[in-house]
């Protein structure tokens, strides 16, 4: 356990050094945030029907998405892991007395958390100062806030478990781009990042609720804005835990299978 923590710590500290990248990222995320808000504003003003989620709640979800982008996106790529697989430097990792799955997992987790750590506060603070209805607001009560924190943490654990599957698939495809692209596009749609899940047609919603992707970020964000009742939130936490265990087991089994037929690339 200690070695995984040490790796986490090293990568986390290293991640915090990329301040310029974070600053650039913050600007990009504001741009995207405003763009999404404008698109949905056009949608809300042109439709007279009442939507299942109100515009101000949606705006808050969009800001959270931008602030915690590093917790969300499946296309976040760790080139070092990709190179290890494709060029065969994985040989070195396997020569260490560690479990590879857990080792990579802590590494990816460190990367995402350090990246989010640098970005989320500035974005939320500026968004907080915007005029209504574009502003970010505090949650209704302390319990929603706590539920939000718990589900967000479980959510990022699920995202990393999902992205582990992407990296394991690279043992077979030997291409970083392909695996990430397919997983990224499908996964993000199913997580409600392109169309928010409350606005999806009912049939599609039913499918989405059966899959793990929405438990990454749709759930915590909607708990924050109050679009999910408390009882449902508690049940969802259990489902998150179950998904996490399932994804972990799949990842472990798949990885041990992949390592058995592993070919170390390049001499």
């Amino acid at each position, binding site marked *: 356990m200690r070695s995984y923590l040490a790796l986490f710590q*090293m990568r986390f500290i290293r991640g915090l050094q990329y301040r310029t990248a974070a600053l650039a990222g913050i600007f990009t995320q504001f741009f995207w945030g405003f763009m999404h808000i404008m698109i949905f504003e056009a949608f809300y003003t042109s439709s007279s029907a009442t939507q299942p989620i109100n515009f101000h709640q949606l705006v808050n979800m969009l800001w959270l998405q931008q602030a915690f982008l590093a917790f969300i996106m499946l296309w976040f790529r760790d080139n070092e892991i990709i190179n290890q697989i494709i060029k065969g430097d994985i040989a070195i990792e*396997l020569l260490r007395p560690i479990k590879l799955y857990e080792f990579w997992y802590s590494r990816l987790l460190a990367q995402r958390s350090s990246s989010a750590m640098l970005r989320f506060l500035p974005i939320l603070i500026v968004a907080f100062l915007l005029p209504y209805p574009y502003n970010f607001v505090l949650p209704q009560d302390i319990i929603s806030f706590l539920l939000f924190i718990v589900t967000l943490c479980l959510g990022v654990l699920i995202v990393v478990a999902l992205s582990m599957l992407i990296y394991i698939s690279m043992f077979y495809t030997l291409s970083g781009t392909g695996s990430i692209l397919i997983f990224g596009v499908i996964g993000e749609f199913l997580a409600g990042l392109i169309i928010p899940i409350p606005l999806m047609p009912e049939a599609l919603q039913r499918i989405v609720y059966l899959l793990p992707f929405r438990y990454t970020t749709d759930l915590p964000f909607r708990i924050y804005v109050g679009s999910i009742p408390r009882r449902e939130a508690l049940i969802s936490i259990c489902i998150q835990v179950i998904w996490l265990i399932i994804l972990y087991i799949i990842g472990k089994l798949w990885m041990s299978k992949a390592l058995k037929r592993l070919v170390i690339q390049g001499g």
Partner: protein
Amino acid sequence: MIQVQGISKTFYIAKRDKCVIEALKHLVKREYAAVKALDNVSFNIKQGEIVGYIGPNGAGKSTTIKIISGILVPDQGTCNILGYTPWKDRKEYVKHIGVVFGQRTQLWWDVPVIDSYELLKDIYKIPTNTYQNNLELLTNTLELKELLYKPVRQLSLGERMRCEIGASLLHDPKILFLDEPTIGLDAVSKKAVRNFIKTINQEKQVTVILTTHDMRDIEELVNRIILIGKGKILLDGSLNEVKLKFGGEKTILITYSNQHKPFDFPVERINGNQLRLLIDTNKQSLPQIIDMVSEYVQIEDIDINHLPIEDIIVKLYKEYQL
């Protein structure tokens, strides 16, 4: 200590297409060519030995190293190293070995060397005492002091290699695998690396298995060589045996004055008053030759040279048609 018995490994490589039609056909059905990388390889190595594992490119050296270090699973065969089967007990087993791949880095690319070392300390659960002692020893013998606080990406190849070797020895391994450790290094660094390998072998009784194309490595370090070619072990013996068997030829350079009669034996070259002979000591002994030559000339000086080890190895490869 190391027992390897009948290891075989075959790789399947998708066939490349020569024309478009074949390429289209292979879209539907792929064809694979089997490449036998290792074929029934067996050897035993005792504690404290330094073994040179040599062979031409593509002979199966690296594949062997990968299998006995636990990262590749062979198709057949058994292996017992320190009581472990490397590929089955990988996690336990690798605690006791150190590996350096000359062409890969085990240090984290973007952090100072010392940070990598600290992380390795945690990964291998090295007790603080042992770690401090080893670090001090390695810093002194490999001259790492100024390198430790530089990020790996700023190091030159020779500097990096010294740090790599240091990293592979922090946890007191009993066996050290070195896959081309001197590749691309300058003469000074090569010498430093060789001296260091000798030192840890003698002082800590570390067993060393070394693959290399640099015959000076072999000559200066190794007491036993294993020759592999086309996936099979062709020769396993001491360097001296090999030298005797394949290195019987010597060149003799004789400086002379007062030639009594013209030479009527095969001479390789005459240059002024220097005579160069190439002889096979398995057929004629040296004193015989010198006696014979002294009948023709008055000998002033004699220089006798072995066949360089490179030439011996070339002969060896030729002998086995590699």
